């Protein structure tokens, strides 16, 4: 079970992404962070802290649950429903540049659902995608704007992002799927 990113590496990576955000957007005016539940939200909050340390500015930060927008919802004749959690975007996204944050970019289907969900909240000026890990195997034409680590994987492997806030420690692990 190889650890591909440890706590230090994750910390440095997020600091680097925060600097890239400032550089690319020439500051943080009109920016807002929206994390995809669950771990995208933790990463978004950490990026907000990093951006505050760099610029002194407070970036509005929200949480998005994409369950009700999933493209595999109701596809099976019978099956348990995925758990729905609360979306909290306590600011208007109209005319803002939204930094959409997720832990792992894989097929792109979660991102597709997140884009649809975001558009229902308003009309942002732009949406940029931030992921901690891009593991490839895209099934939709989606690309991240900021990538913590590009991680080539086989499709029978799984990438586990563990974060202090939800899992008690920071690490990214590559696992062979147990089938």
């Amino acid at each position, binding site marked *: 079970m190889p650890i591909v990113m440890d706590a230090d590496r994750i910390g440095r990576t997020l600091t680097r992404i925060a600097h890239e955000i400032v550089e690319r957007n020439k500051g943080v005016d009109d920016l807002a962070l929206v994390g995809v539940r669950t771990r995208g939200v933790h990463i978004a909050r950490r990026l907000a802290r990093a951006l505050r340390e760099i610029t002194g500015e407070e970036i509005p930060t929200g949480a998005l649950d994409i*369950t*009700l927008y999933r493209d595999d919802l*109701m596809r099976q004749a*019978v*099956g*348990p429903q995925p758990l*729905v959690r609360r979306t909290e975007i306590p600011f208007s996204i109209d005319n803002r540049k939204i930094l959409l944050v997720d832990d792992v970019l894989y097929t792109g289907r979660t991102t597709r659902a997140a884009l649809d969900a975001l558009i229902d909240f308003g009309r942002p000026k732009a949406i940029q995608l931030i992921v901690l890990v891009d593991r490839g195997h895209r099934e939709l034409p989606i690309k991240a704007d900021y990538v913590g680590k590009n991680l080539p994987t086989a499709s029978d492997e799984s990438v586990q992002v563990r974060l202090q806030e939800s899992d008690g420690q920071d690490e990214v692990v590559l696992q062979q799927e147990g089938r």
Partner: protein
Amino acid sequence: MIHTLRHKDLLGIADLTPEEIALVLDTAEAMKEIGSRTVKKVPALRGKTVINLFFEPSTRTRTSFEIAEKRLSADTLNVAIGTSSVVKGETLADTALNLEAMNPDMIVLRHSSSGACHLLSRICRSAIINAGDGMHEHPTQALLDAFTIREKKKTLSGLKVAIVGDLLHSRVLRSNIHLLTKMGADVWVCGPPTLIPADVSRFGVRATSVIDDAVRDADVIMLLRIQLERMEGAYFPSLREYFNVFGMTEDRLRAAKPDVMIMHPGPMNRGVEISSEVADGPYSVILDQVSNGVAVRMAVLYLLAGGAEHEEAA
């Protein structure tokens, strides 16, 4: 933690475990946020068809279900009984089977006979949601009541809940007793002796006809409508006397906890079970109940749309 309901249908609270009740309430919290958006719609139930089959008059419940269905993007239609074949003598089972032949996914049923939903549950493939059957159960009302209480008090466990009014004819009472006792509340029921069901204490509640005992230190007071349309006999001398003995007034409220919540499932008879001052007063959460009803019904529709399944690992 469970992620799904074990049943195809929602027939009553009696069938639900405390974990399933908590799942509905947690899911409803997420659904409530959708109602506060500018675009109040998510695509979750796209392509699903829901029939609202109401054999009894209803404004609140029918509208609430319809809004909930639309916010989840289901296709909904309302069968109004006055213009349906029921007036030509069709049985409930035949009506249901004919509707089902058009392949809906869910049927929301209100009927004046207790057990009507159980009958449909046996003969229909669609998920049946009980929107009130006779004097039996009204599960979504109890769920929205619980949601409203939990929103304000954070928990249901250990609260003193006094339910006052026409206990005998009330399906809201029956669903609420099941739900509140399962979730650990201390439930008191109060009304004229003629309107207290025999053996109600078997359900783990305390029954009294002394309103002050029921109200004392209550965290929640839930008033039930005096159901004039279901009363064939003389249960009490007059509505005015009922108000004098059992009506909720500001005076009576003083014995309750300072942060007491006043609830009523509606429609209210002002000046019978509740005074206008109390209904419109600061303790009243009656309109919150209505708002929360949409979120709770969205949660039920969403959870049942997956079909019956046992607990999953993921």
